[in-house]
């Protein structure tokens, strides 16, 4: 048992922190205000190899582990929740499924440019009537000669507006129990009939790009099917397990930023003749915040470690995601409380953290779904 980051993980943490503090944090308030997705920052992150951390060198990645990746997500999220979300989605949802399930050819064609940071990818699972309830998927793909013809709608798809391709889930038939068979397809965003609109006005994570997809008779070659045609559902469950670690790491990063602001403010703000950090009412809040962050981070590292060891991590990823997001929400809320009226003002930059972290309790499976996942893992 060793609770220390390795030298490489430590170096990655320092590099990403320095990069995020210099290049991302100074813009975070503006990007939030203007709902601006910075493609420039993603180019820079690509050049530094951040978009390829968990992929092997042969596929253009850095050959790092999941812990290093989680550390990077936390540091970027600490600077800007929206940028952190787009980063986590690019790696965990855009690139990872192709690494896990793609053929060698698909990896060379689609994964390598993403790992090198030359292209972004997106993952189109959620629909107006289907997300965690995959059975409700309405998007359909029908084989026509050597091509699949896809029709349907997807919503809230992160990064699609800047993606080279989207992995789209679609119903391809029924199994013998009359349940929908879901497959995944790699769909180039420039395919005719593929419309992408990014007009959502979000509460938080506004620096991330979120889009609505409409597929009208979009034709993709048969070889663009990703992984096992009959196991699209299982595949995306595995993808989401990995994604949950990154959402948990992102929640830790956002909470850490809120905590740091609250701690500093509490030390500086004087009331009744002393710093408010001398009052137990404030001290107890700060103590709880620091404790919950540390617990959440430990769980993130454990889930990431299990994944790196090739051990089952579904339950632990849900533990991490559920606890980090709910604790993170409490922390961001208390950070505003400690700031009092100032915290309610945009100028102090703490209200953004609460708006940003709210998504962590919703995206990649709501808190309620996480509890279902955990209960199922317990054998209920």
């Amino acid at each position, binding site marked *: 048992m060793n609770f220390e980051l390795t030298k490489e993980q430590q170096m990655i943490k320092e590099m990403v922190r320095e990069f995020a503090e210099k290049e991302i944090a100074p813009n975070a308030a503006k990007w939030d205000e203007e709902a601006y997705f910075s493609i420039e920052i993603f180019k820079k992150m690509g050049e530094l190899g951040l978009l390829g951390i968990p992929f092997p*060198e042969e596929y253009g990645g850095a050959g790092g582990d999941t812990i290093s990746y989680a550390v990077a997500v936390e540091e970027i999220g600490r600077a800007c929740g929206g940028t952190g979300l787009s980063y986590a989605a690019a790696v965990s949802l855009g690139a990872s499924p192709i690494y896990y399930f793609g053929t060698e050819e698909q990896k060379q064609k689609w994964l390598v440019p993403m790992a090198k940071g030359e292209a972004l990818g997106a993952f189109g699972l959620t629909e107006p009537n289907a997300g965690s309830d995959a059975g409700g998927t309405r998007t359909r793909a029908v084989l026509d000669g050597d091509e699949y013809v896809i029709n349907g709608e997807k919503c809230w798809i992160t990064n699609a507006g800047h993606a080279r391709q989207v992995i789209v889930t679609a119903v391809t038939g029924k199994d013998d129990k009359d349940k929908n068979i879901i497959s995944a397809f790699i769909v180039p965003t420039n395919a005719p009939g593929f419309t992408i609109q990014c007009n959502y006005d979000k509460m938080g994570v506004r620096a991330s790009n979120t889009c609505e997809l409409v597929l009208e008779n979009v034709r993709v070659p048969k070889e663009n099917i990703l992984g096992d045609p009959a196991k699209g559902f299982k595949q995306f469950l595995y993808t989401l397990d990995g994604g949950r670690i990154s959402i948990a790491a992102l929640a830790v990063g956002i909470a850490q930023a809120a905590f740091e602001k609250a701690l500093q403010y509490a030390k500086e703000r004087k009331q009744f003749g002393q710093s408010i950090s001398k009052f137990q009412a404030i001290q107890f809040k700060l103590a709880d915040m620091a404790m919950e962050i540390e617990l959440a981070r430990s769980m993130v590292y454990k889930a990431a470690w299990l994944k790196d060891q090739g051990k089952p991590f579904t339950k632990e990823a849900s533990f991490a995601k559920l606890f980090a997001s709910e604790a993170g929400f409490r922390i961001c809320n208390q950070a505003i409380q400690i700031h009092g009226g100032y915290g309610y003002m945009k100028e102090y930059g703490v209200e953004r953290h609460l708006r940003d972290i709210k998504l962590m309790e919703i995206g990649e499976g709501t808190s309620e779904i996480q509890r279902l996942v955990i209960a199922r893992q317990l054998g209920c």
Partner: protein
Amino acid sequence: MNICVLIKRTFDTEEKIILTDGIIQEEGAEFIINPYDEYAIEEAIQIRDEQGGEVTAVMAGNEDGEKELRTALAMGADKAVLINLEEDVEDGDQWTTAKVLSTYLEGKNYDLILAGNVAIDGGSGQVGPRVAELLGIPYVTAITKLEIDGRKVKIERDVEGDVEVIEASLPLLVTAQQGLNEPRYPSLPGIMKAKRKPLEQLELDDLDLEEDDVEPKTKVLEIFLPPKKEAGKILKGELEDQAKELVSLLRSEANII
């Protein structure tokens, strides 16, 4: 081009200095590569990329310095040398460091040695020049531009805000001033590759040095923090009265006039 960069591990610039019984507490503090040394590393890498050759990063310190040397390797240095003084040297000063480094460098035939202009902790700015003196090679401090053409070197150095242009020849030691370049972030592939790059660990013994050879020539008598900044004073009243009061305060209170 055979290039060597001298590196120091220092307190993070954001770290708060805490004194206990006159000793600076290092426990729990974050450490970084001395920022001026980062300019030196960056310059060395750029020269190597243009002209070929090899960059070696050298540190006299303790085993914790491995992290900073690995960072230099991750930025792009080819190999690193850590001279671990922990066991042999209890107190050291600029002489100690310069003696250790120059003994290591003796006979290694480096064309160019780069160091930071000063370290942000001790701030003496002496180690670079001392190493050059001990090696018997010329040195130029606080450089902001470096052009190498064959064995000829054209340098711009910062002189209190003015620029001095100097011609020199290799072998040469230079110390890097802010403005020389913009140090790169170590990239992810760089960090992963740094693991596999050679990092040699040496002790005084390996350099045929005795503890007496590197005994400090100076003695620290006292370490203290700068006095707390007093709250400012805002003068009130008519402009003329304010000016008068200001002059009298500068005379009587601040003792400036």
